[in-house]
Each structure stands twice: as C-alpha cells, then as structure tokens.
C-alpha cells in the first residue's frame, strides 16, 4: 500500500513561500541522491522533487520545489544553495522560477488528501494503488 504523505498546510498557502528550481544534470546513476544529499546536509528543505531523462537520455531534468521566502534570510541561503548546486560535477545548469510555475501546480491533483483524481487517472492508465 502506498500512502502519500501530506503537509498539514493547504497546498496553495504552502506554495506561496516556495520557489521552483530547474536543474539540468548529467543522467548519471545517483545524481538525484547527490542533489538531495546536498540540500539535506545543508539543512535546506526540499518539498518536492521530480526527475526525468531529457533528449536522448544523456541528461536529466530535476525540478525542485524548495521552501523559501524571498523577503528574509532564506533568500540568501537559497543563493548559497544554488552556488553549491553548481559546484556539483553532474549539475550543468540551475534556473530559478517562481512558485507558481506550472510543473508542480499540475501535479497537485496527485497529492490531494482524497486522491479522487489520482484514482481516475490511475484507472485510465491501468495503474492502481490502494
């Protein structure tokens, strides 16, 4: 049984304090763990992560939803995180987007507590998790 884990905050409110990062990385084994490990050991929250190969598969794109408020010290911390990301050998590029970037907005339907839409989609694609 797979049970999604939810933040107690509503998604919209939560997104208002977030930023979306778009990383282009070498599609090497372990590249996701490198990125996640970097955020974790520097005590910077990652709220969401998506990773898929792009083009012919030599590179991947990683989307990160990071918890961050542009007004306070977190902004400086995020700048530091981006510099640290760019030091990773397998990270080729980092772009910063606003929290309303549609990549995570479109995903929200899969992360609702009642999971109705999720079930519908799953049924259509012949996938199911209970």
């Amino acid at each position, binding site marked *: 049984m797979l049970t999604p884990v939810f933040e107690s905050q509503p998604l919209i409110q939560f997104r208002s304090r977030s930023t979306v990062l778009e990383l282009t990385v070498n599609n090497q*084994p*372990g590249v996701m*763990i*490198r990125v996640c*490990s970097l955020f974790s*050991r520097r005590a910077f929250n990652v709220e969401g992560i998506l990773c898929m190969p792009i083009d012919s598969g030599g590179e991947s794109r990683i989307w990160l939803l990071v918890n961050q408020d542009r007004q306070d010290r977190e902004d*400086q911390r995020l*700048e*530091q995180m981006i*510099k*640290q990301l*760019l*030091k*990773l*050998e397998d990270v080729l590029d980092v772009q910063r987007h606003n929290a309303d970037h549609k990549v995570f907005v479109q995903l929200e339907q899969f992360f609702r507590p009642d999971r109705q839409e999720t079930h519908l989609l799953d049924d259509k694609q012949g996938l199911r998790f209970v």
Partner: protein
Amino acid sequence: MIKRTGAQIIIHLLERQGVRTIAGIPGGANLPLYDALSQSDTIRHVLARHEQGAGFIAQGMARVSGRPAVCFASSGPGATNLLTAVADAKLDSIPLICITGQVPVAMIGTDAFQEIDAYGLSIPITKHNFAVRSAAELLVVIPAAFRIASSGRPGPVLIDVPKDVQNQMVEFAAWPEPACPEPFPDFAPAAGERAAEMINSARRPILYLGGGVIHSGAGRLVTCLAEKASIPATMTLMGLGAMPMDHPLCIGMLGMHAARYTNLALEECDLLIAAGVRFDDRATGKVAAFCPNAKIIHIDIDGSELDKIKTAHVGIVGDVGEVLETLLPLVEPNPRSEWLTYVAQLKQKYPLLIPDAEDLRTPYGLILQAASLLDDETIIATDVGQHQMWTAQVYPFRRPRQWLTSGGLGTMGFGLPAAIGAALACPDRTVVCFSGDGSLLMNIQELATAVEHNVNVKIVLMNNNSLGLVHQQQDLFYGKRIYASDYQSRVDFVRIAEGFGMKGYNLSASDDPLRTLARAFRERGPCLIHVPIDVNEKVYPMVPPGAANKDMIGGEAHAHARV
C-alpha cells in the same frame, strides 16, 4: 589495439599521471588491483596498518607537493576506515584520489560479504565520486578524477571499482592523455580596480590569509602586497606559512587562540582583505562581531565561499595569485605609519605571552627549542589538540607547505601518518610531528609503517596523559568537572616505540634534554621523543566557543605579572 584488464588500466593511468607512491591496504575486493600494481616498475606501494593511516599518508604527500596523491582500500571496512581521511581532505581542500575495491557487480545490493555502499557513503565528503561499472569507463574516470581533484578548489575524489571490473579485459585504441588542472576562471578587471581603490583609500587595512593562498602558491605575492601598501597580515590555521611569521608586517594567527593584539587589531580595521579564506568560526568567533568596522574584499577560487558567512563589498572569484598579479600594480605604495604604529603599540601592550620559552619541559619552551635546532627546510606536522594550538601560536613558520595540520575536521590521529606521507614525498627533509598522547594513540599502528620505510619522521610527543583541550574546556567552562578526559592508566610510549622497532627518547630522563633533542633530530630515521607535560597547562588566550574574538580569556600581561 591495446588489450588490458581494468586493474591494469588503473595502474597504467596512475603511472602516466606521474604517481610514484601509493599508500593502501589490500583485501579481497581489490586483489586484482594489487596484482597489477605488483607488476609496476615505477610505483612504490606503502603498506599502511589501517586504511585511515593510508588516507593520511596520501594526504601528507598531497599537502607537501600540492599534487593529487593516491590511496587504495578494499571494500567494506577498508572503505569505511578510509572515510575520516577523505572527510578531512574535503574540509582542508586537499587533492586526494581514493580507489576502493567493491564486490562484483552482480553481487551489489545483495548484502554480500564486505559489501558497503562506498559511493553513497562518500557523496557528502568528496568533491566528486564515481561508481565504475565497466573497465572501459576507467579510461574516462581516472583522468577525470585527477582533473577534478586538482582543479579550482582542490578536494578528494573516490572511485569505487567492483572486483569483476578490475578483472574485465577490454580493447581500446589509445591511452587517454594525463589530466591537468583546468584553467582558473576569469574575473572582471573592474572588480580588481574597485578592490585596489578600496585598498588605496583604506586607513586601517588588514590582510586575512588562508589555506587558499597556500594552494595557489601566492605566498610571495601576498607578501609583496603587504609590503607595498604597508598592510599588516594575519593568517588562519591553514594559512600559516603564507607569510614568514617573523615578517615585520605579520601579526600571527587570528581567532580562537590568537594573540590578544591580533584580535584587537582586527577589531579596529576598516578594510579586511580576505584571500583564500572561508570565515571559519574558529577564525571569526561570533561572526556578527567580527571586524565590526571593516569593509570586506573577498578573493576565493570557490564562488560559494563569497557571501556565505560574511557579505563582501567586493567579491572576486579567482585564483588568489592571478587576482593579486592584477591588483598589485593598481595598489599605491603607502607607508601607513599611523596604523602600523598603532598595531605595534597593540602588540607591545597585548603580546602573545610565552612563559618559560627557554624551558624544554614546558610546551612553548619545547616547541621553540625544537625550532632553534631546525631549519626552514623542515616540515612540521601536528596532530589535533593543545599541542597543535601551541605549535600554531609560536612555531616560526617561514614558507608555504612547511606546516601540515588537520584544520577543518580537526582529526586526532592525523599527525603521524601525514608526517610519514610528507617524508615519503620529500625524502631529503626532516619531518617533525608534534603530537599529544591522545592523538598519537588514535593511529599509533603507523609506527610500524614509519619503521618499515625508515622515514625521517621525528615524533615529539607532549604527554599529559589526558585529552588536553577537553580537559581545558571542562576546567574553564564546566565547573572544573574533569570527566572522561584524563586517562586512568599510563602508557609507556618509549617502550611502545621500541616495541615497533623505533628509537625512543625520554627527555625527562635526560641530563641534557636539549642535546638529546638535537641528537634525535640529527640521526636519520624515525624516532619518538617523549616529553611529559603538566596537565594543567592551558592554551591561552582563548575565545570561549560562540563568543566574540575581543572577549578572550587568559594570556593577559597583568595576570601573568601577578603570578
């Protein structure tokens, strides 16, 4: 076509890279690699007695040469034992290539005998790492590892190679070229001009020099800058040797165990020229109170160091040497006599107190008397603790790479193997390792390695039968509740050394300790010089952890006068 096994490829690429000494320990999962190494005519293997020792021996070689050094370990415990030395190299930016054996590819993920995820474990403590899955990859991975370890800000690279990949035979057309460090990043000339303007208009500037100056080989240039514009210079623990300690503009090490006048001068400075430093907490004390009146010029090869702890008014990402080459012609000569006079007065009023400088039975006396018997060619290594701080405070370092110490990680057990590595890389030099009994016990097995290779390492052991810095903090900050920091039994280190086949001297039993010390230094080969010291000796001054640098305790002239 060339036909080789993975193991042969690794060894030949290391030979082509100019590697002449490898420290390591063989085991089940790296036996093919050792078999290939046994056929090498140019690489000497140094068998350590613990993988951590192998890692620090390689560090010693890398720290004195500035070039990547190599160590080998087998899978499982071999790899985990190596990790402390790898983490140490990461924090001090030391170029290291660690090649670990791994269980065969088909067995990965099955909890096989001596299987451990060396790749996953080493991600946070390496600059980069590789999990190799085919012998052909090695033709790319080995040169890449050398390029990464030595480019920009140096650091350790770990390569995990499964046993079957070591045995796999592959054909290829040509050997890859040996890797070189990448060129340094360009920096905007405008930033250099702004920095020069700030230096020219500053009234009370101070140079703050770190390990980056050593890595860059920019010692001569920082000295030129200091002299041209009359700028006092302070050094971090990692920066010692960047400028001669006896240079009139040198104001010694800053931070937690700085001389009072050094920290007080930093309080007054109006421009801090930070070169190859990372504003480490042991140097800055409470950051908000560090150099409260200063603008900051920060030069570093690693852009992520700029604005990490302190926001710079001018930040330049580049090699310290290259940046200073540009900066120097733009800086105007300036006698700055008012500021230099002020600093000289501070120094006179709040000097580093060195009681009993002549007495070999005291820590400072021992270090200074040892220094009087040694020349600038000597390499000084330390372990971690009180002896390390005393040495950093008073040893007259006069050149870069003369000083090997574990700065960022502060690893007890660093000293002996690092000294062995230094002696292997520089066989014509004497290497003196100041150590403490707590530290020495953490890698004492490497006495066997030192004897086996007859390295010219002199261990000067300050024995207070305790963990001295812990003892000091418990005494000062924990109500004198000395707990778990004093050893209940005594070790006879001279006999231990002799048991390993090493010469041991006990200075406390000598009628003429200075002569005994001189003889120990003069005779070629390894030896241990045992010096009992008082457990109540303290490293002063001391900035309490978390306090501002101006709030030092101990080491006051009037307090001393009262005694």
